[in-house]
């Protein structure tokens, strides 16, 4: 039996779904957390093994406004579910009934589940279920998704045979009137004449204040990054990077292999290729767990909706919507859910721009690169990490302005954003969520990154004739890298090693550091992290900084490109998006190298003339596009 959960955004569907199935779908206290459907079997404790539950994105009605709401409508109409559970937001029953009445008209068996029982009790509201059931012609169950109250009743109810009665046809003029009648007949809800500000309103007064709002937001984000990168997360990551993966594990394995008399080749592959590469990635696990934990707390509190509101005025100026800030905050963890979170943006142009710009936010996979390069090349400058976040904001603003000029569009259309009441974020949920993210990260490190590292290691150890490369310069990797290397000369990235790291970086940004570790033949990070180590021979501080910039702004990984593909729903836009990101990364890195070399070393960098040509061509092309759109507009 297939049961679907439908209801308004933020009515607690996903919380119910998680409770009923034991899944760990992300929940949050703002509209639009669930952006695609999810399905799973009912948990065993309910004793009904034949039930599959489907969680759909929230929607206010069957006539949707945002693209995420379309999924709900299409699903109900095309997949013919056996039963609909319509989750009604107990905090706003009247609004929810709009959707309920539309669903009843579809003549599909349905149960109404009034959720957030705790809020109903707190407000001393009384619902006469018998009267309401009679009015709507379907069973109603009261639940509390947070503590599971009423869920067994709900599942028992699904077993009952039900006759679907033809529900009265309502149109847009009498639907609201009918709903009012239902509410008046079956609840004790009284009209109040004067509005008393609630606790949430009082918090809002402070966090959306004209002068305090923005500083509070940046303050909170600074704390989030400080705690994850320097504080708790940084402390454990340092231990893993500097001791465990640098000394403890390699020494142990080297001893073990020597005692077992394993061939030097295999020992090299495992210690340098596998441990060196994967260690370079896994060392950052604590940092990522703390970051996702804090982001989960933020999402759960209800604060993100307020951030969208206060940032709206600024984001409009660069062609985005206030809602664009949520994908970007989510994107500090990972670009994939960030890009997916753009679905709540109503205006199609604003949504496309947000999809293009969200990957510019440094995601957790870019943190290892930032950490490595700032330690090696700028050991005395503690602000390189924060600078990268500031720089990403500057680039997003400038890129937004350019895109707005190229794709002329008005962006002052409808903006409506629900501001849910604040709630105490659930620690348990945040822990479960961050451990789940950690699991995904470990999985990625031990599958795709492991495979790639092994391949990279083999490619740098063998010649094309499959003989052991005595000199790395003759290896397969060196030959492949040499092909691409000329393209990177204007950026100041000399040598096939960097070409190799650049290619693998397109697959996943975690790969960049891992590949460098492998091609430079360093186990663990102490050598890699050393200011006089092999890395310092490939770069000077200027080109090192350029390499960092390049990796920060080129597309984050294959998975993010996949997400962009899904969200753009157009190959043309996907190509534009990728092309734009690659161009921004390339040109910025080129500018850093060329201008930086002149300023710092008082000489011209390699590839100065080609750089000038590339710059003139790209500026010319952008101007051409802007003029063309100007003409089209007239």
């Amino acid at each position: 039996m297939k049961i679907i959960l439908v209801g308004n955004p933020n009515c607690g569907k996903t919380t119910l779904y998680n409770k009923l199935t034991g899944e760990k779908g992300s929940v949050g206290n703002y509209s639009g957390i669930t952006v695609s459907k999810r399905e799973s079997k009912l948990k065993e404790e309910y004793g009904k093994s034949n039930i599959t539950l489907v969680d759909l994105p929230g929607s206010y009605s069957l006539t949707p406004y945002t693209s995420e709401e379309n999924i709900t409508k299409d699903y109900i109409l095309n997949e013919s579910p056996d039963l609909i559970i319509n989750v009604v937001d107990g905090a706003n029953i009247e609004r929810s009934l709009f959707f309920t009445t539309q669903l009843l008209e579809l003549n599909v068996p349905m149960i109404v589940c009034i959720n957030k029982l705790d809020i109903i009790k707190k407000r001393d509201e009384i619902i006469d279920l018998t009267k309401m059931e009679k009015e709507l012609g379907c069973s109603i169950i009261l639940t509390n998704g947070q503590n599971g109250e009423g869920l067994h009743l709900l599942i028992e109810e699904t077993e009952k045979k039900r006759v679907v009665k033809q529900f009265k046809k309502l149109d847009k003029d009498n639907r609201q009137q009918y709903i009012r009648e239902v509410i008046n007949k079956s609840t004790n809800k009284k009209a109040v004449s004067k509005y008393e500000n609630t606790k949430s309103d009082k918090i809002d007064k402070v966090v959306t204040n004209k002068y305090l709002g923005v500083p509070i937001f940046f303050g909170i984000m600074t704390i989030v990054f400080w705690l994850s990168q320097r504080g708790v997360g940084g402390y454990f990551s340092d231990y893993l990077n500097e001791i465990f993966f640098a000394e403890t594990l390699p020494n142990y394995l080297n001893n073990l292999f020597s005692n077992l008399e394993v061939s030097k080749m295999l020992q090299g592959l495992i210690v340098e290729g596998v441990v060196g590469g994967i260690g370079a990635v896994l060392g950052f696990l604590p940092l990522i767990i703390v970051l996702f934990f804090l982001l989960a707390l933020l999402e759960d509190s209800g604060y993100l909706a307020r951030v969208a509101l206060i940032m709206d005025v600024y984001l409009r100026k660069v062609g985005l919507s206030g809602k664009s800030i949520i994908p970007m905050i989510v994107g500090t963890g990972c670009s994939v859910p960030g890009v997916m979170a753009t679905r709540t943006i109503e205006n199609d142009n604003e949504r496309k721009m947000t999809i293009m710009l969200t990957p510019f936010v440094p995601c957790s996979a870019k943190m290892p690169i930032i950490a490595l390069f700032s330690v090696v090349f700028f050991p005395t400058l503690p602000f390189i990490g924060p600078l990268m976040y500031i720089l990403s904001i500057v680039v997003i603003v400038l890129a937004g302005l350019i895109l707005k000029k190229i794709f002329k569009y008005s962006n002052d259309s409808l903006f409506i954003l629900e501001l849910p009441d604040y709630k105490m974020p659930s620690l348990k949920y945040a822990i479960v969520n961050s451990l789940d993210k950690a699991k995904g990260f470990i999985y990625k490190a031990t599958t795709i990154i492991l495979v790639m590292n092994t391949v990279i290691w083999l490619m740098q150890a063998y010649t094309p004739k499959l003989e052991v490369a005595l000199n790395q310069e003759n290896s397969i990797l060196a030959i492949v890298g040499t092909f691409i290397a000329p393209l990177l000369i204007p950026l100041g990235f000399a040598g096939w090693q960097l070409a190799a790291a650049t290619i693998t970086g397109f697959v996943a940004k975690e790969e960049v550091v891992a590949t460098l570790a492998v091609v430079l033949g360093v186990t663990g990070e102490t050598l890699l992290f050393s200011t006089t180590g092999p890395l310092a021979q490939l770069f000077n501080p200027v080109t090192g900084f350029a390499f960092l910039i390049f990796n920060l702004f080129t597309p984050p990984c294959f998975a993010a490109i996949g997400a962009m593909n899904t969200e753009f729903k157009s190959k043309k836009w996907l190509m534009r998006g990728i092309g734009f990101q690659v161009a921004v990364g390339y040109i910025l890195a080129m500018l850093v190298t060329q201008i930086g070399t002149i300023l710092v070393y008082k000489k011209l960098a390699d590839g100065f003339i080609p750089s000038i040509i590339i710059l003139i061509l790209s500026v010319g092309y952008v101007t051409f596009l802007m003029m063309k759109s100007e003409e089209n507009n007239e």
Partner: protein
Amino acid sequence: MILGQCEFNKKYFVEKIECNEKEARYLLTLGCYAGSEILIISKVSNNYIVKILDSKYGINEKIVNKIKVKG
């Protein structure tokens, strides 16, 4: 009177919604239609915090100014 000119935290009744059809339909699903109650809690730069039924929304000025109300 335009909703944007209303006194904060005071209840008004919607008289007329002058948005395009798609926007009006969206407002209707939230419970904002001719005859419904509405109140403004505060203004945040170019947006208003508006209470419709039991929920609060951030709504942009352009839309708020298309909602005509009476006391």
